[in-house]
């Protein structure tokens, strides 16, 4: 690391310096610094990363499009006449106006409301209003060529029905980016045709990284979410694993269902496991081993913005959308499989109470990042300790560990620097 990279000599324009090369040292200012947030947009979201954009099933037919964001950048994902998925920035090549004003639509072309420039669903400029002027006056000069003014295109890739995009020309293909381990975790969950059964958005009053870390944090799950321990859903003493790709950025954790697991470690720690509580209607946790492998919880992440969850029989895609240095939107897309019968659908709907903004094992994640953000406000010198389970970001067959969080910082520092 050069002196310049560390921020010295660059004034406030460099990335926040890290105190050491150790992945377990994370300076607090990365969550509060507006300049860091701007750098992340350039170096992570617009950098060599694959970002989740939408479900392929949201644009099933040629002509279908959705408007979404990659980082803070407005983008359009469209299915062209040949059936291929295309993505381009939602910004007219003429004067930079937002092209699509709604979340979804259908058509042969997209026309800017401002001056009527139109584009096909591959992002090519096809029409310019009054290109030849009016009554032979005005119009575009002869050197103007429409094929030099297409929309800025993204590379796209699809895996398991999820569409990803990148601004980067050089980033490796999606499956290489994810690595075989994480690809395997994704194929395990999305192993058959699925559809959307619900959506919502949770506004998180915190920096996006606090949530990205939270979902990689197997340590907090059975402490903060006391519903899990109270009703014996996911104790750290259950068999499980953390699986991290080579870059560190992607992972999945698994826990197996084992009601016989000892709770001695909880009692010893005198945590607040309230074992006399009973549910009046336990259908909210009655799970069916639909994958036949006893895995009851699998949380998978793709750096930087995707979470794919299987919590019992709830399947959901969560999309982390940074909105400001201290504000994040979390989109929840709840899925069911096309072969679900009525009983399975009802099971997923009832277990839906576990997750989302009102979820028994998720709602605390909506506020805890905000508590951290508040504590760091104007008090962000120093840093945190991410040392549970060692200093490395390697896969582990236990979950009392912060290895996947260290993996996040390994990938993050490779991209942002410092």
């Amino acid at each position, binding site marked *: 690391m050069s002196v310049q990279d560390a921020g010295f000599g660059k004034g406030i324009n460099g990335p926040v310096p890290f105190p050491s090369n150790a992945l377990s040292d994370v300076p607090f200012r990365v969550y509060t610094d507006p300049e860091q947030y701007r750098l992340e947009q350039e170096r992570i979201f617009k950098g060599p990363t694959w970002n989740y954009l939408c479900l392929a099933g949201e644009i099933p037919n040629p002509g279908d499009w959705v408007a979404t964001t990659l980082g803070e950048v407005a983008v359009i994902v469209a299915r062209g006449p040949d059936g291929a998925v295309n993505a381009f920035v939602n910004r007219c090549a003429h004067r930079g106006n937002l092209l699509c004003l709604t979340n979804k639509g259908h058509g042969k072309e997209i026309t800017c409301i401002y001056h009527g420039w139109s584009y096909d669903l591959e992002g090519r400029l096809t029409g310019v209003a009054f290109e030849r002027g009016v009554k032979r006056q005005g119009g575009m000069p002869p050197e103007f060529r429409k094929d030099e003014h297409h929309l800025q295109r993204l590379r796209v890739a699809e895996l398991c029905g999820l569409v990803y995009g990148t601004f980067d020309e050089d980033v490796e293909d999606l499956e290489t980016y994810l690595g075989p381990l994480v690809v395997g975790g994704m194929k395990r969950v999305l192993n058959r045709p699925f559809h959307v059964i619900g959506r*919502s958005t949770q506004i998180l009053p915190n920096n996006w990284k606090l949530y990205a870390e939270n979902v990689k944090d197997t340590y907090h799950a059975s402490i903060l979410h006391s519903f899990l321990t109270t009703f014996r859903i996911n104790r750290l003493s259950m068999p499980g694993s953390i699986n991290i790709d080579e870059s560190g950025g992607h992972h999945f954790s698994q826990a197996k269902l084992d009601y016989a697991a000892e709770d001695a470690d909880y009692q010893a720690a005198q945590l607040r496991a309230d074992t006399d509580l009973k549910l009046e209607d336990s*259908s909210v946790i009655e799970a069916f081993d639909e994958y036949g492998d006893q895995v009851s919880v699998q949380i998978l992440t793709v750096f930087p913005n995707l979470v794919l969850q299987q919590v019992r029989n709830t399947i959901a895609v969560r999309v982390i959308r940074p909105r400001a240095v201290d504000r994040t939107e979390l989109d929840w897309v709840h899925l069911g499989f096309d072969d679900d019968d009525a009983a399975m659908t009802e099971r997923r709907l009832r277990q839906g109470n576990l997750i989302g903004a*009102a979820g028994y094992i998720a709602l605390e994640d909506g506020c805890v990042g905000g508590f951290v953000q508040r504590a760091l406000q104007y008090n962000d010198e120093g840093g945190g300790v991410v040392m549970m389970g060692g200093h490395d970001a390697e896969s582990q067959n236990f979950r009392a560990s912060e290895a996947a969080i260290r993996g996040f910082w390994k990938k993050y520092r490779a991209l942002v620097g410092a």
Partner: protein
Amino acid sequence: MDETALRQGIDNLYAAYTDCIDDDRLEEWPDFFVDDCRYLITDRESHAAGLRHGVIYCASRGMLIDRITTMRRVLVYEPHRYRHILGAARLGTVQDGVAEARANFLAVRIMHDGQSSLFVTGRYLDRIDVGATPLRFIERLVILDSPKIDTLLVIPL
């Protein structure tokens, strides 16, 4: 029950329901529902698209009781309350002892430190058992105008 009495009964039910929540007497909240009830919080767009998943999806009075038990004894969040402002109730069809009714609402969230903000607006779409007293909800669909929920939702609406 004649229509005037029915309208008055529904007005009273609506007012008592929001008072129960806003006054933090949530242990009484499940009693506003029949045993075999449905309580769903969703948003306008999801509801229009026929999506059945809800931010909260309760398909029995037991699930409502569990919502309150976990909120009181298990879940972790900052103390806060709501103030509901209700629009006029509108009565729909009444058939076989079941009345359809609806009302618009607005809920302000008041945090423990006094910070107040507009939390949600929406519409209740109800099916009410009017064949017995007191009137109880067979189904209460809480259709939020926006799919965005700030931070978390733990107190029922």
